[in-house]
């Protein structure tokens, strides 16, 4: 069975600094998708970034980028120039066969001014 592990329950970062959130996963599939979702306090879950496993190039979306290491089954999220609005719970997710998502336990990120 596929599993997703986020080993950091909570992280803090100063405004304008860079932070990296860790995620590892376990699967026997060769083609899959990986996601980072953001859930601000009492607000809607939104997509941060997505990575297709067959692509070697790491995905980037503005201040958000990933370090995808397929052999190590690692998928970390780097947030550059952190902003107060980045404060949220971040979930790493693996899309398994059938278009179903398996989520990690989440990392609470607090951006401090």
């Amino acid at each position, binding site marked *: 069975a596929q599993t997703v592990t986020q080993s950091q329950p909570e992280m803090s970062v100063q405004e304008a600094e860079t932070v990296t959130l860790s995620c590892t996963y376990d699967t026997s599939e060769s083609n899959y998708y990986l996601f980072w979702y953001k859930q601000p306090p009492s607000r809607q*879950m939104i997509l941060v970034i997505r990575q297709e496993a067959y692509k070697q190039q790491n995905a980037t979306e503005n201040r958000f980028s990933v370090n995808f290491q397929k052999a190590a089954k690692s998928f970390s999220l780097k947030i550059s120039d952190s902003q107060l609005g980045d404060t949220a719970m971040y*979930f790493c997710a693996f899309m398994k066969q059938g*278009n179903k998502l398996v989520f990690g336990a989440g990392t609470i990120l607090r951006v401090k001014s």
Partner: protein
Amino acid sequence: EADIYQTPRYLVIGTGKKITLECSQTMGHDKMYWYQQDPGMELHLIHYSYGVNSTEKGDLSSESTVSRIRTEHFPLTLESARPSHTSQYLCASSEYGATQYFGPGTRLLVL
């Protein structure tokens, strides 16, 4: 921003009541999903649908039921609510092999 809606946003109800949580999307997505999320915890898939008249149970066992009579509508029903059903319920939709877009969620409290 994805167009997926859930009502009610908050619901407090007594034990034994029947409830229906509504979810609708205007994107024409074939696939829809229901997740259950306890506060500060990960999401667990409880139901999904690949199209009209198609429904399947997810990875987490749930006493709720779902129906998919129209593409845009995927309601979830609890015939007899219990305190153990207290949780947040999130609806999502997607096209095949694509990103899932989430609704705002319904926070359910069963007294």
